[in-house]
């Protein structure tokens, strides 16, 4: 039986395709990564079908590229060596909402839009990255370590126990979901760790190279009863970052971030391009956004003590930081911004990063906050050398866990229909990434062209990764050509 016939039988004809127009859809995305065609696309309905497909692929050494989201920005699901695209979008069930333990168990195809909507009905939310696309898979984004805008929780990542299909085709449950008979069990899946090894760690940041995650448990939080959104116009970003070093370890606020005028304008503008252009010129160079929330009990009192603390710090230590409930000149902004921070970007509106020119190349990494301005300076020095104006660079600073580290993200906007523009941005992106890497920027998610740059610098890590990969994927069928595999 050939592959086409076998795969069609496994998932049913309606969930299999090798039609060129379908394959073409999976061969490219919003990134600058070169296109690559799969041979087949299959859409399994459950873990058992995934298991059969992966087993077949492993026996026949056919590449498998898992994909869960309906929209992609980093080239991670573009097949580099053909094979099967395993589209998990049909596996989109919210399997459990466990109110006692503040836990949700979801399949890989559940999107941000779907999850936030369903959780809201029950009074819960999941801490979110900044404006994820509505049709992105929540599970994929957290496996890929998106950084939440909420900085107050010590435990950071919401990922708990999950189920995978190994590249050799076995189904395996990790952490406390590993008990026999789960979920009909005393154990609920609250611990991602073990059994034996911390297997789940190998799946984080793996871009589908280590196996297929079919479902996972995630922590959810109660929706605050009331919120106050504070803004501060910022000219001196170093001063603002010092302020964050002072206040965030004291566990105040929920969402907290810094956006430059380009990114904030792209998020806020509704009338394009006029409103965007106006915002670009009127917004301050940077805006600090801090949400202070009252939780389920005594919400006013919680907000009151946080405001009092902030007031004292501002008055006594940071008199130049003008934190207020409105950004001067932008009345009503607090009402507009909070829903944006607590919801994904709607699917029926062009993605905020793509609205300006049609596409955007993201450059992001982890660093110490104290070094952020130095990296910003480097980018602003280098971009004009490629004909890219500094005034068009979007910049986003996201403190992590009490500002002990930060996620720094630059947005380079380009016209996807203009090949010259695309190539210019691609070269600039690669060169700037190399320069930042050399200065200590830490790229935890090395997508596409970044991977060889990063792993050349982290040679022993790459060598050990290959040894681990060989144990679990001896035929290197999972998304080959990605990372260092």
């Amino acid at each position, binding site marked *: 039986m050939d592959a086409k016939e076998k795969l069609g039988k496994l998932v049913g004809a309606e969930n299999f395709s090798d039609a060129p127009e379908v394959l073409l859809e999976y061969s490219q995305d919003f990134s600058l990564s070169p296109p690559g065609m799969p041979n087949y696309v299959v859409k399994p309905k459950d873990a058992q079908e995934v298991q059969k497909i992966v087993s077949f692929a492993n026996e026949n050494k056919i590449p498998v590229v898992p994909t869960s989201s309906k929209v992609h920005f980093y080239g991670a699901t573009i097949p580099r060596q053909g094979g099967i695209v395993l589209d998990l979008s049909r596996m989109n069930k919210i399997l459990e909402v466990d109110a006692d333990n503040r836990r949700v168990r979801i399949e890989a195809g559940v999107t941000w839009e779907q999850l936030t909507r369903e959780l809201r009905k029950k009074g819960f939310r999941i801490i979110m990255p900044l404006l994820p696309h509505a049709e992105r898979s929540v599970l994929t984004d957290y496996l890929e370590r998106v950084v939440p805008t909420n900085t107050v929780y010590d435990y950071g990542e919401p990922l708990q126990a999950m189920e995978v299909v190994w590249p050799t085709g076995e189904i395996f449950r990790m952490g*406390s979901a590993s008990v*026999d008979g789960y979920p009909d069990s005393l154990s609920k899946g609250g611990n*991602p760790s073990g059994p*034996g090894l911390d297997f789940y760690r190998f799946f984080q940041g793996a871009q589908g190279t280590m196996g297929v995650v079919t479902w996972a448990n995630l922590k959810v939080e109660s929706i605050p009863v009331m919120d106050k959104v504070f803004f501060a116009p910022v000219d001196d970003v170093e001063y603002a970052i010092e302020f964050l070093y002072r206040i965030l370890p004291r*566990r105040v606020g929920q969402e907290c971030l810094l956006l430059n005028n380009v990114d904030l304008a792209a998020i806020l503008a509704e009338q394009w391009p006029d409103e965007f252009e106006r915002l670009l010129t009127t917004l301050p160079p940077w805006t600090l956004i801090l949400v202070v929330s009252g939780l389920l009990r005594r919400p006013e009192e919680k907000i009151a003590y946080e405001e009092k603390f902030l007031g004292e710090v501002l008055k006594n230590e940071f008199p130049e930081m003008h934190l207020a409930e409105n950004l001067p000149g932008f009345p009503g902004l607090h009402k507009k911004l909070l829903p944006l921070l607590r919801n994904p970007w709607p699917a029926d509106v062009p993605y905020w990063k793509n609205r300006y020119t049609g596409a955007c190349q993201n450059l992001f990494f982890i660093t110490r906050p104290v070094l952020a301005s130095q990296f910003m300076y480097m980018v602003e020095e280098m971009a004009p050398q490629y004909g890219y104006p500094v005034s068009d660079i979007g910049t986003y600073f996201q403190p992590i866990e009490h500002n002990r580290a930060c996620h720094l993200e630059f947005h380079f906007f380009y016209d996807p229909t203009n090949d010259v523009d695309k190539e210019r941005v691609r070269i600039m992106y690669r060169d700037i990434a190399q320069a930042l890497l050399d200065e200590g920027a830490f790229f935890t998610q090395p997508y596409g062209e970044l991977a060889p740059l*990063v792993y050349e610098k982290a040679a022993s890590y790459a060598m050990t990764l290959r040894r681990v990969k060989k144990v679990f994927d001896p035929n290197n069928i999972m998304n080959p050509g990605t990372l*260092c595999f």
Partner: protein
Amino acid sequence: MSISKEAYTVLESIVGAEYISDDPAVCEGYRSGPGGYESGLGYERVMTVIPGCVIMPNSTEEVQRIVKVCCRYNIPYVPYSTGFYGPRSHPHVDGALLIDLKRMDEIDIDDKHWFAVVGPGAIYSPLQEEAMKRGGYVVIGGGGAQASVIANLIGDGWSPLSHRIGLPHRRILGTELVLPDGELVRMGSLAQQDDPFWGEGPGPDLRGLLRGYTGLRGCLGIVTKMAVKILPFQPERLEPTGISPHTSLALPEKRVKWINFVVPNKEAQVKAMFEIGKAEIAGAVTKVPLFWRAIAKAECKEEFWDLWGKENSDSINKFFIVRVLLIGFTSEEQMQYDERVLMDIMTEVGGEARPTKPSDESWIKNADSAGMWMMCGSYVSVDYVIETLSQATQHGETYADLKWKYTPPLMPDYGDPGWFQSFELGHQGYSEFLVYWDQDQDTNGVDLFYVDTAKMNIKNRAYTSLLGPHQPLYLTGPKYGPNYHTWLLRVKEEFDPQWVCHPPVPLAHDVFMERAPWMKSMKDWEVPKDLPK
């Protein structure tokens, strides 16, 4: 049995004559026990031996060279820092080289970015003191403040303070690991630069090799450096008071305060924990076994038994306490807010605050585990599991039921269902069940109880900390994952094909089952014929 003269000479050239010895008197000092964790049990008697040689490196490079010599000369080796974890951190085969890492005791704190870089010989006590001077704190595990920070974080690493951050894995940042073949892998930001501030990646996270929930007992390499998170605390000084052994930390009551509540029943106890988690308040929320109160009050073994002898099943069954630590992380006003919310919750569940000492004797200071074997001489935790509060609040009762069958030799505790508490603001729950025995008695029943708990957890579909090398791998392996043991063993084979790194871990308990005749009745699972003997 000592190692060959030829190998000894090579090893001596690495560290110098002062830091290597095969003198039997020196090696005897590294014998497991007497007393303490898992002491005197069959596993210790059957599986542990004194090392053939002891070496004390002072750098990662020296560790790498030593390990490569071990691979070259086929010398089994065991990494060792403080040895608290009883028999399982001691050599299991004759002629082993014990690599004592206590000289590598650096502690370097970055207080702006809330982490400390530590060596494997660094212990918690100075780290906690230095962290607190800088407005931070670390979570000292039940092993005590005398335990190695790294060894604790790759095997255990929690306490009631884990209400804020449960899984110790989340506190591990950039790490340096000497693999069993001597190759060095640097994880997180250390992979690309000499800065350990970040723990993940690049790409897939190799910290997955470090521990696997409750550790691998050093059978997959030697951690030589680790950056560990410090959590922001509050600015007031906690003043040490008293004279050893009656020491404590006087708490600045406007910023740090323990309150004990008596609640009417278990339902109230559990509800209080869930509600405290949902309200996102407090620094610790715990319920400990009743006999800990006797331990805390007693100054000697006899006094413990005087106090404990007054208890019975009825008093145990009517004892419902919730112990809460409030911390003013933000300000005094924040702690007042937490206290008001806490009192609301306690009013709802019928809890009453009881007078509580304005001091800390155990969890912030040092997790005073030394007193835990005072009354019997030996103890072991047969589970210390992180799951959800749904599991944690029921798990101990299953242990208590099973324990009757093995009492004695286990200490009578009148059916006390153990310890449970909130982790990660109630997203997780923790349960621990400790057993005590007199090592001068016949302890075979303790060995049997220990393995019987694994069977019980399999049957009850409960997660347990005692997986991997802590129980027979071929008993638990097929039932969790399933078949996690096959993947663990494949990883072991990849990185340690000679099985020189702490053999026969992770199969040591399987080997024990084969060697100990009194365990035969318990064994009803299959093991391969080529199990290491």
